[in-house]
């Protein structure tokens, strides 16, 4: 039996774990007590990470035209498919990479896009999830954003948490908040719905859907100019549905804070404007010299930081015109003819119906991944790549620390190391032989990525602490913030008295095919497969239905009949829909609202009507 240290391959917390290998098989992932992020704690996904490699959902052999193929044939088919469309110009091609890729794999992906395909259309899945808020922070703070290490949350005396979902969505951060509360910290939770953290809070500040930015702007201005709120501010708070007493208490707590932790998940706070206000509050408090304030933006994918540092970003940067972002590539009509998807399925962003439609719009779809997904099934060519546990590499965690990943088991099936696949693909297309071994890729990273120039890769591989200094962005674009931020207008009326809220932080990891391959996780997620609505129990009674039965929800965009679940944390006038049910979300909330600067996308709340179909 052998044991090897690793970083958890799921969210952006970057918890340390030990992989236990027995008889050539990865059998368990066990927590590391000395690693700073987790300190011995893992969430359910982390505990089950040991089952990922041998998952029944692994993609084992290359597929071409829906049939098993040899590597040689599959590579030839992929190269021919791309070469035929490359003649139409680099703008016809696009590359998307997962935030689960290692730094070395991400670097190889960038080289493939820029040197083999010569396309500026390059983006990563992690940015699509947390880009909006990270962009808002970076553009306001004027520095690349790195989070402090998570245990520092526990040393705060006041915590303002903007994600009530952390108990389920990010237990590690929730654990540190609970530890701080135990030590006497004031925990303020401000959100539009309560997904569990309210019970553990000192103060609960509820606001209406779409009113977070308005609340934060009033909070910032109130902290900057103590005294009575102006009539306009009071009016804004009223429109935001915020209780004046709770707001006053929140202001008082923040003014008294010695160490303030502002915590949110990027799956909750999604817009640059919201994040910009958070940054403004932090800067304001720090400027006093009497207070220390820090932002803890909890990222969605394990190497969210690394894949952006490695340059898996559109063209010359997000603020430039050149190069399409993920949502632009997937938009209808897509300007692309061929798309290369690496490490994750597209259905996560467009839904299975959306994927079918996209597939019809594309002339060629190439998938490289470790798991079977709807994308691998629809791809012209699907190539199996090695995954976490089967490859050497590094992750860059939320605080910029670089941690090694080691190969602990041989590749499953016929899967191969991604950089080697991309090198062979490039050569088969008539492109250059790209670097495909770790030393060459790391030398490339040291040359090309400013913050990584001083990284000693040998020390990193040996487990010694190394930190990548923040990678300066060449982008520069102001976050567009209205002078007087108001809640997102929702045209509610007698016909549509409810507000449909699409939340990204409600069991979103249920759609990760890797997690679904783990028996226990698969079992625990059984209730998250099919779409459902979450409503207040009172709404349920008013509509004379009960949990598990279906209601028909109608918006300006469409209508769906879905089973309901009850939660007292959802206000009576709100209907919540988990974001991962992409086809339903698009049908009810319309297309994503795309932020022009950050190129992140999110749903805006919309007015909705509910009807009990058994009564109509």
């Amino acid at each position, binding site marked *: 039996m052998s044991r090897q240290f690793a970083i958890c391959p799921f969210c952006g917390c970057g918890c340390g774990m030990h992989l236990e290998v027995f008889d050539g098989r990865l059998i*368990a992932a066990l927590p590391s007590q000395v690693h700073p992020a987790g300190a011995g704690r893992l969430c359910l996904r982390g505990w089950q990470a040991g089952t990922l490699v041998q998952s029944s959902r692994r993609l084992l052999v290359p597929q071409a035209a829906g049939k098993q193929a040899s590597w040689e044939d599959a590579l030839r088919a992929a190269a021919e498919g791309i070469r035929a469309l490359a003649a139409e110009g680099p703008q016809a091609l696009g590359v998307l990479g997962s935030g689960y890729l290692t730094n070395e794999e991400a670097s190889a992906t960038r080289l493939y896009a820029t040197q083999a395909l010569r396309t500026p259309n390059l983006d990563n899945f992690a940015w699509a999830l947390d880009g909006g808020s990270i962009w808002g922070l970076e553009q306001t703070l004027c520095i690349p954003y790195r989070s402090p290490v998570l245990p520092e949350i526990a040393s705060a005396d006041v915590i303002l948490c903007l994600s009530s979902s952390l108990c389920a969505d990010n237990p590690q951060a929730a654990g540190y908040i609970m530890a701080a509360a135990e030590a006497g910290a004031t925990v303020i939770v401000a959100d539009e719905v309560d997904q569990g953290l309210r019970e553990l809070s000192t103060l609960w500040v509820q606001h209406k859907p779409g009113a977070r930015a308005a609340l934060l702007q009033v909070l910032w201005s109130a902290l900057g100019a103590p005294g009575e709120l102006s009539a306009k501010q009071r009016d804004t708070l009223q429109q935001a549905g915020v209780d004046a007493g709770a707001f006053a208490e929140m202001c008082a707590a923040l003014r008294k804070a010695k160490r303030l932790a502002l915590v949110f998940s990027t799956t909750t706070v999604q817009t640059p404007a919201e994040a910009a206000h958070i940054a403004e509050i932090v800067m304001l408090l720090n400027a006093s010299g009497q207070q220390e304030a820090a932002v803890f933006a909890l990222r969605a994918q394990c190497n969210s930081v690394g894949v952006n540092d490695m340059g898996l970003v559109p063209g010359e940067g997000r603020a430039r015109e050149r190069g399409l972002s993920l949502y632009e590539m997937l938009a209808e009509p897509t300007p692309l003819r061929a798309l290369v998807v690496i490490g994750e399925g597209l259905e996560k962003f467009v839904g299975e119906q959306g994927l079918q439609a996209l597939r019809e719009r594309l002339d060629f779809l190439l998938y490289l991944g470790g798991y079977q997904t709807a994308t691998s099934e629809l791809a012209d060519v699907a190539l199996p790549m090695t995954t976490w546990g089967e490859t050497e590499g590094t992750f860059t965690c939320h605080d910029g620390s670089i941690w090694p990943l080691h190969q602990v088991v041989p590749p499953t*099936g016929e899967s191969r190391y991604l950089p080697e696949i991309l090198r062979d693909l490039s050569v088969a297309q008539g492109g250059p032989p790209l670097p495909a071994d770790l030393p060459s890729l790391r030398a490339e990273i040291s040359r090309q990525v400013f913050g990584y120039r001083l990284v000693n890769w040998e020390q990193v591989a040996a487990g010694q602490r190394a930190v990548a200094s923040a990678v300066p962005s060449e982008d520069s674009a102001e976050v567009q913030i209205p002078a007087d931020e108001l809640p997102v207008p929702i045209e509610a009326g007698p016909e549509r008295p409810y507000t449909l809220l699409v939340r990204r932080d409600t069991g979103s990891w249920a759609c990760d095919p890797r997690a679904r391959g783990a028996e226990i996780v698969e*079992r*625990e997620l059984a209730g998250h497969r099919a779409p459902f609505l979450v409503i207040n129990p009172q709404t349920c009674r008013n509509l004379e239905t009960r949990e598990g039965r279906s209601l028909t929800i109608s918006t300006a965009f469409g209508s769906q009949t879905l089973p309901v679940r009850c939660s007292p944390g959802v206000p009576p006038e709100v209907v919540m829909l988990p974001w991962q049910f992409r086809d339903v979300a698009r049908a009810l909330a319309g297309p994503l609202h795309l932020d022009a600067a950050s190129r992140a996308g999110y749903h805006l709340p919309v007015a909705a009507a509910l009807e009990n179909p058994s009564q109509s």
Partner: protein
Amino acid sequence: MPALAQYSLPPTRLKDLFQRLSQAVDQVIAPTRVPPGDVFYDVVQGPDEVALDFGNSLVSPVAWLYRPVEEMFRVLPGEPPRVEPCGEEGRRLLFAVRPCDLAAIGRLDQFFLEGDFRDDLYAARRARTLLVALACATQADPRCFCSCCETGPYAEQGFDLQLSLVGDRYLLEVGSESGAALAEQCRDLLEPAAEDLAAGRAQQVQAFYAGLEQKANMPAAVRRLSSEAVPVELWDRIASRCLGCGGCSFVCPVCTCFYTTDQVREDGSIVRVRAWDSCRLEGYTREASGHNPRAHRRQRAERFSYHKLAYPCIQREGRLGCVGCGRCVTVCFGGVHMPRVAQMIRRGE
């Protein structure tokens, strides 16, 4: 149970003792430090790999008897298919096992060997394992509360040999016939135990009790829980702080929840695999019909605590379902670990 014999061992001979014990088995499992600094019980090749300067490992050495994931049997393709047992392993010595973990092994013995069903995998592994305990009197971990569960700092039974550092010497106690045979093989390294060693041992126990940071009045919690005097709201409060990771079950050396699954291997064989599971998870008790007798987290929290602390369980199994190792203190996000739960139950808060 009094030790069968007691010896004294100068610390300078500890490595020699280890070497001698190693010769009696095929494999020695001992605490060892692995990068970036965690202590695990792993196979070691020599005494220099052994780490004795630790409180307790996060994963119990019990994991070497009841594996996190293990193959139960294999069905080989053919006409007819052939069933082949799994689990052949050599003789092992678990070195420096803490007394709380020894108590847990006693509990697992009851569960896997003495109930209505006998687990052959566990039985075979257990029969081939020798246990050398390391008392904790000088090294209580801040999370430990073994004294509250009467499982430490010294083991009173269940070991073959027990080592404890008393003053400037090790006290070696013999706890079984197998242990006596081992001690006999090391006889030239050992000296008779002087009386002051026994006195020093007793003094250490008192000092250890005084120094424990975690304290849980288990008997009071048992009384209250068993008399059904616990307010229902208490389980809600515990449930609100439980984030459903299952970590408490996974690190608890006494917990035995598992699931089985059949895996098809590349060579066409089918392997039945058993893996750790947790009754703290919603799906563990979900029935095929969809009905779940413990669908709510508070019900699972109550059941878990009941199984650990309630008198009927203690009566049936002869001891508490908690050995005070403190591992749940480390892994619980919400701080609703066993000493805290016992305290909440006792106070009815």
